[in-house]
């Protein structure tokens, strides 16, 4: 995937931008507040129809302007071009793909495939498990769209089952006085939950495995030769092995959690409570024991692994957008990260440090200096 041309009108601090981008590493250098992240934000919009830092479209419209425009010419890895166009007003969006109006946003999202890393992305590692489950599920659905109805089934069964639990236990720990029918309804939803839940756990375990196959060597390339190792593990309260016992194990855990369910009045085991673990040196939780730089390396490697996986599975090399990704890494790591980036089709890297820019420049196709919403080529390294 490649961004060939970008046009911005009144997007953040860009009044007017018309630029063609080459393949390879593109550096956006500039002081704090220059507009480096704003540019990546525009590309993020084209990819996900949302920002990575706000939920309100109107915040990205240039101060006191009526609307913002983002327009791009993109090309997939077979060099087939396509055009994306996005107009943002407060509360309204107008989306076009190849000149056609798009009303179902899911037809647009993901068409421009990108992997994004920014400083706040560290919360993927340190934050709530929900974030990690979401990333896994998003990737799974990208690779296997047929799973969507399974997820819908699971969510529905979970909601219905929780409603039954609330009726069955009108107050925490106190059971309804005529519970027979409700118990049977609970059992019906338990069956649905297990059916869809087991499928989801299996798929998540599977994708964690293939992601890990990309992740481990990538992390090893980033870390020093005798340095730490990090791997991924799907963590579930339900024993996932042996596979033919998965449904039975889930059923057993659900029946063992009856007391907890009675007091909490919701379903406490299942894929909706699982997690993706980052494991340091084969045994420890990276988010508790890892250093800042190690955690940052892992979060970044995770994005690189997702990109590598989609290159392998979908023969599509996603755009890499690395916003201030190098800070907090030692110089060796920076160098090794850049070596990995060189193997991707197109990579945008921002930096506010001249020293960093000097480090990247020799490997970059082009370096832009960003100032006040204007881009000027600062020369290329090659």
């Amino acid at each position: 995937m490649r961004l060939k041309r970008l046009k911005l009108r009144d997007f953040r601090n860009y009044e007017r931008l018309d630029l063609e981008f080459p393949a390879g590493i593109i550096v956006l250098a500039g002081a704090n507040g220059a507009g480096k992240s704003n540019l990546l934000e525009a590309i993020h919009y084209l990819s996900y129809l949302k920002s990575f830092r706000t939920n309100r479209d109107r915040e990205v419209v240039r101060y006191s302007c009526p609307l913002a425009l983002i327009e791009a010419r993109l090309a997939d890895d077979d060099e087939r071009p396509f055009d994306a166009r996005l107009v943002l007003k407060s509360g309204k969006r107008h989306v076009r793909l190849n000149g056609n109006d798009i009303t179902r946003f899911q037809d647009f999202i993901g068409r421009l495939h990108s992997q994004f890393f920014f400083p706040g992305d560290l919360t993927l590692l340190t934050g709530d498990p929900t974030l990690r489950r979401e990333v896994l599920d998003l990737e799974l659905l990208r690779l296997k769209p047929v799973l969507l109805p399974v997820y819908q089934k699971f969510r529905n069964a979970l909601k219905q089952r929780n409603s039954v639990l609330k009726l069955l236990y009108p107050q925490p720990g106190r059971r309804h006085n005529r519970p027979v029918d409700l118990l049977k309804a609970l059992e019906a939803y338990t069956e649905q939950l297990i059916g869809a839940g087991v499928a989801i756990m299996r798929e998540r375990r599977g994708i964690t495995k293939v992601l890990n196959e990309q992740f481990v060597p990538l992390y090893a390339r980033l870390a020093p030769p005798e340095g730490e190792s990090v791997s991924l593990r799907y963590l579930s309260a339900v024993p996932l092995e042996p596979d033919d016992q998965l449904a039975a194990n889930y059923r057993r855990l659900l029946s063992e959690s009856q007391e907890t369910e009675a007091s909490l009045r919701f379903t406490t085991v299942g894929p909706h409570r699982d997690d993706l673990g980052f494991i340091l040196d084969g045994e420890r939780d990276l988010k508790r024991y890892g250093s800042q730089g190690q955690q940052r390396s892992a979060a970044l490697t995770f994005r690189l692994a997702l990109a590598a996986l989609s290159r392998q599975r979908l023969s599509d090399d996603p755009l890499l957008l690395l916003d201030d990704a190098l800070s907090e890494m030692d110089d060796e790591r920076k160098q090794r990260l850049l070596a990995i980036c060189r193997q991707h089709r197109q990579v945008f890297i921002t930096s506010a440090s001249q020293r960093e820019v000097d480090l990247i420049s020799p490997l970059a196709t082009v370096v832009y200096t960003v100032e006040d919403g204007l881009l000027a080529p600062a020369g290329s390294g090659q």
Partner: protein
Amino acid sequence: MLGLPPALADLIHQLTRLPGIGPKAAERLALALIKWEPAEVASLGQALNDSVARVTDCPTCGCLSQDGELCDVCASEGRDASVLCVVEDALDAVAVERGGTYNGRYHILGGALSPMKGVLPEDLRVAELLERIQADGVTEVIVATNASPDGEATALYLKQELVELTAPGGAALRLTRLARGLPSGAQLDYADPATLQSALEHRTEL
């Protein structure tokens, strides 16, 4: 600005209360209706009044019937009383009946289970179903609730309720579910993945 005559506006408003009728469709219907002959309009009104006054639920199965009597299926001597087809609502029974091959009887549940939307087991005609199974010597129950999540949950729920019942003579009651698969005349490459998967799972011997 020229508004609609109040009588017409009222008619349009009444029509929009019908399911599937939006303001535009209601306008078209109303304009067509006012061009009818008075006699035609009167007979439409008569049909409407009659339907409201006379259409009732069959006291046995819950299908649509008239004047509180048994429906045609329940009244017919030729239908097999030992087989019951359980459906969510009366129109589902009409659909199965159109298929023309089913020779058993029906039982209308009156909806599908959905605790989230406030539909609980006690809101479905399950007690009546259990009673009929015992009283009529039923040997097989075909659960024909929809293939939607709620329909599936209702089927699983009925299984809980019925699984321990016995048919006359002590044999287990036969519980079946409608197969899910390709609609007839369908092109394989146009079928959605879920349908294909289900068709594969429920494949039959050639």
